[in-house]
């Protein structure tokens, strides 16, 4: 085992993880990106005819809590899939997280046929230092700029 100069670097790494964790989690009533009823969008690399006009399964599963708009992307870049919460700007944060995850899942299913799974079971050992990072990765597809 090699073990050298752990102190300051480890502390800095932990701090960085915590800061990113806070940034990614988007604390606050309306998240970092504005009101929760803004449109979120992904572009699917398929022509509109292959995507269809009905909300893809993961978005359809969210029912009336989301509105969906599907339109061609310019320049032959595929099909834009837009979705927004119908519950207004103060809709629960959980709904926005579910919407992001559903958009990412819909895109992956359409493009690749399945949703890529993270390594399970992992070999990670929980420690106090990596708790912020574990919190982030537990919600890896529910957060971010999308």
């Amino acid at each position, binding site marked *: 085992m090699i073990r050298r100069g752990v102190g300051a670097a480890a502390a800095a790494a932990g701090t960085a993880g915590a800061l*990113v964790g806070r940034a*990614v989690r988007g604390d606050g009533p309306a998240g970092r990106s504005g009101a929760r009823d803004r449109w979120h969008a992904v572009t699917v690399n398929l022509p509109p005819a292959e995507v269809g006009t009905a909300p893809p399964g993961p978005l359809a599963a969210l029912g009336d809590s989301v509105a969906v708009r599907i339109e061609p992307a310019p320049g032959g870049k595929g099909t834009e899939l837009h979705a927004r919460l119908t519950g207004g700007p103060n809709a629960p944060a959980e709904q926005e997280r579910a919407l992001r995850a559903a958009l990412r899942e819909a895109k992956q299913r359409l493009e690749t046929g399945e949703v*890529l799974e993270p390594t399970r079971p992992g070999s*990670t050992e929980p*420690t106090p230092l990596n708790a912020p990072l574990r919190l982030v990765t537990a919600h890896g597809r529910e957060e*971010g700029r*999308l």
Partner: protein
Amino acid sequence: MKALCWEGVNSLAVRDVPEPRIQNRQDIVVKVRLSATCGSDLHLVGGYIPFMQRGDVLGHEFLGDVVEVGSEVRNHKVGDRVVVCSFVSCGRCWYCRQGLYSCCDNGNTNPAITESMWGFAPGGVYGYSHALGGFAGSHADYVRVPYADQGAFTVPDGISDERAVFASDAAPTGWTGAELGEVRPGDVVAVWGAGGVGQMAARAAMLLGAERVVVIDRYDYRLRQVEQVIGAEALNYERTDIGSELLERTGGRGPDVCIEAVGMEAHSASRAQYLYDQVKQQLRLQTERPSALREAIHHCRKGGTVFALGVFAALSDKFPMGAVMNKGLTLRGAQQHGQRFIPRILAGMASGEIVTEHLATHVLPLSEGPRGYELFKDKKDDCVRAVFRPGG
């Protein structure tokens, strides 16, 4: 099974971890024959990329034998010897279809982290932190390979394991720098860094028609490889004024293409510059020590191209934007788009025009993983790359 795990900053250990299994229909499981250390691992080991967790398996440059195949895998069968691109890329999103495989939309299972840091998420990488998907690495007896029809390539008979393993990352990364840097016949190309990636960038530039290729480093044993194996010119920046040499070798113009293959922990001929960057990096006031990138920008000819091939994490200080703008430079960067280049590289390896086994200066059993990283990190015993043989 046994695996080499990150235990904390500058702390590695071989320990027992769960064996991988098929999780997606497009997965294969590979029994690892060889798995190489990479300079970019050192940023993880040293805690400069703070997204590792204790117990994470390192390693992203590998080859091995297919032992299990998912139901939707079409190109591989049990028993195939494959080399695997270090990037996990779906092959079907818009970016993959453009050949920008490392920018894949679907290969990273934790897109939130890098979206927040960089604006958008690149694809995933084996053993390269939870920011890039948290995939278990290849310094292990077995490794799961998602999107196997896209990222795994059958190695032709006649190419040794020691040569083919570098088709996983070092060679396609070098090729990415030379091709996306738009090296053209007649160009003079300067490469900063004589490690595996720098040597491969130099070789790719030569194969793309460069007239002269000059590689810059401070380690003579690596520069000897550059001259004797790669066939490029070598400059030691600790004994040579690089600026003067490059001017002389280019008739006063400067290199047409400058490829930076060092990354965020660069050293410098300027002691003051090195200390400045080191202090700021240790205080986390910047994440990089970008001295090689600064030099590449400074020495590149007017209207030339600078390609950032070394790994950078986030923020660089004292970035010479004035030189970029006023000299009309093209500045590009990329992680490797290996799926685009590996077939060409394997053909070159088969014909003998791409030689890599000299990079594997230390082939060790996986049980000696921590020692291998020590040799590699501290450049002991003329180490260029430590390569691990699980079960060996």
